[in-house]
């Protein structure tokens, strides 16, 4: 008798699970089509006063998911890429789904990826960090060596300098994810370079560091010694677990507040020298071309920026009444001091609530409650950092830099909320 019942249960569970998977993939399929989302309705059999299946039958045991994954109903919360952007997926980028995240921490599996030669797969036993050049002792460290140094644990945002790069000439991509998603924010565990260098010593002439990755692009960037000694880290963990392969496992460089390209993943070498190395990534790329035909070089800091994550093109307003506007703000120059919100395209502004912790060079969450009665809105957010730098408009940036500099677009975006609640990325002028 007992046995039979057990069979019944597990049979039921099987069918039920399959239904769920189908359900999840269809949710994924329509996540960017707000209209269909509206028609996704609850199953009345699961609502009061009825008894849902999950209330009656056993769920999965503790032996089913040794590494837990998000709910099957969250299948739409994924990194996405733009296929036409690049010739090859191994030298390309995908985007963090900021519109679906809360708080200020980015889950490890959703941190955007940018590689120049695909994801290297490295057995940590085979990891070596070489330090050479103008040091007292040229040295090699294993991962275990690094973990025995004094440890630091810090939250930092990492933003690609090309985040929003497609929006210089006009609104191009209709999504919060595609226009702002080259940023993530995690807690890094690692060793400060200022501690590591106590072991190698440093020659007085050392002014620059070449950081080199061991991936197939041999990623290299020059970093001034002041920054290296100030707050740079060799990190091996993010959000409490080992770095993800796509984030540089087993170890990467952390360069707080500075453009993501410098945070060399799969790090293998730091060379100290008296001059910058002028690598491809700091000449051909990551230089900001102005209308004069001259280009700015070594533009490292990420200026203050903010984005409204909901409402946003992926998060339409579904009903009238009270809503919580949500967003994220950050600055490579320190802490966020204030975020203002406009619902009329920048004519009038209200200050949003910042949620603690408000940390230096970290994403900061803000919210602002608002009533929607079906009217058109032009939503904007404007960050101010502790240096009193105010996030600019796109026309302020264009006046000085033109439209061809690709990198460092930290301008205010505008979301148009239409009367039907749909949200569009628009350009005002």
């Amino acid at each position, binding site marked *: 008798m007992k046995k039979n019942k057990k069979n019944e249960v597990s049979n039921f569970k099987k069918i039920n699970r399959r239904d769920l998977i189908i359900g999840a993939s269809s949710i994924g*399929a329509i996540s*960017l*089509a707000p209209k269909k989302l509206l028609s996704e309705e609850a199953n009345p059999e699961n609502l009061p006063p009825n008894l849902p299946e999950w209330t009656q039958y056993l769920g999965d045991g503790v032996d089913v998911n040794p590494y837990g994954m998000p709910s099957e109903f969250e299948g*739409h919360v994924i990194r*996405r*890429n*733009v*296929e036409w952007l690049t010739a*090859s997926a*191994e*030298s390309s980028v995908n985007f963090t789904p900021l519109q679906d995240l809360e708080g200020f921490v980015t889950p490890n599996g959703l941190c955007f990826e940018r590689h*120049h*030669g695909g994801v290297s797969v490295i057995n940590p036993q085979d990891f070596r960090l*070489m*330090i*050479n050049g103008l040091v*007292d*002792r*040229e040295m090699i*460290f*294993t991962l275990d060596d690094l973990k*025995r*140094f004094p440890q630091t644990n810090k939250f930092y945002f990492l933003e690609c300098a090309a985040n929003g790069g497609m929006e210089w000439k006009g609104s191009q991509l209709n*999504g919060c994810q*595609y226009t702002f998603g080259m940023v993530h924010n995690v807690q890094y565990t690692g060793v400060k370079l200022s501690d590591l260098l106590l*072991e190698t010593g440093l020659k007085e002439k050392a002014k620059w560091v070449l950081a*080199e990755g061991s991936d*197939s*692009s041999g990623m*290299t960037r020059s970093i001034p010694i002041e920054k290296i000694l100030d707050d740079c880290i060799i990190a091996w963990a993010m959000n409490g677990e080992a770095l993800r392969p796509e984030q540089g496992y087993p170890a990467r460089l952390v360069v707080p507040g500075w453009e993501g390209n410098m945070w060399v993943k799969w790090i293998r*070498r730091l060379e100290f020298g008296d*001059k910058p190395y*002028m*690598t*491809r990534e700091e*000449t*051909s790329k990551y230089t900001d*071309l102005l209308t004069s*035909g001259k*280009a*700015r*070089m070594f533009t490292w800091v990420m200026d203050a920026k903010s984005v409204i994550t909901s409402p946003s093109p992926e998060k339409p307003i579904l009903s009238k009444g009270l809503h919580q506007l949500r967003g994220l703000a950050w600055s490579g120059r320190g802490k966020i*001091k204030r975020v*203002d919100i406009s619902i009329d395209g*920048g*004519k*009038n502004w209200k200050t949003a609530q910042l949620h603690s912790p408000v940390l230096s060079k970290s994403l900061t969450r803000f919210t602002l409650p608002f009533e929607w009665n079906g009217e058109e809105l*032009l939503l904007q957010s*404007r960050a101010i950092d502790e*240096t009193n730098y*105010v996030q*600019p408009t796109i026309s302020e940036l264009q006046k000085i*830099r033109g439209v*061809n500099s690709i990198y*460092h677009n930290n301008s205010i975006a505008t979301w*148009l909320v239409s009367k039907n609640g749909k949200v*569009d*990325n628009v*350009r*005002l002028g």
Partner: protein
Amino acid sequence: MSGLVRWILSFSLIIFLVNSTIASERKFNLGQIANKEEVDGWDIDVRPDGLGAPIGSGTALFGEEIYTEQCAACHGDFGEGADRWPALVGGEDSLASHDPEKTTGSYWPYASTMYDYIYRAMPYGVAQSLSFDETYQIVAYLLYMSDIIEEDFVLSDKNIGEIEMPNRDGFLLPDPRPDIINTQGNPCMSNCQVSTNIIGKARDIDVTPEDE
């Protein structure tokens, strides 16, 4: 121990002591001292002044063949770029135009960077497979296609730091940001004079990927 050996040993001990008093002390006693062979194997970078350039040489004449074999499929026979792969040649005088074309010829300030990058990262997917001479040959061929050197010019570790690239002075330092100093932390809060006309919608451009 002979007197001479003892003398050499004590001498080298003195050198060692002198060195270690100038150099800082190791603080944690973690990690290993790297030997020259280890460092030489990994220290592949080449600086604008030629520092780090491995001994070797090549001309465009020889470069053409290996470029055609190993590079042209993606970068085009003349460096013009096939499909969406990057162009390496062309774009002269385009940098101040509406559609700047940034190539090794039109944009890159140093030939050393071409050597450094091609050796470390190309051909795409088979990194560090070229010999030093092959790399000099290919760089020479690219420079020749951009009219920077003659076809028979022998590019080598001796002169790679002296090649004059057309856009050598095309870069501005230091970073002038913050270059937008609008309101010193006190921006307009009400009745601000801004234009709220919608002049463009991403939806109309219609290039946003859609989930299947």
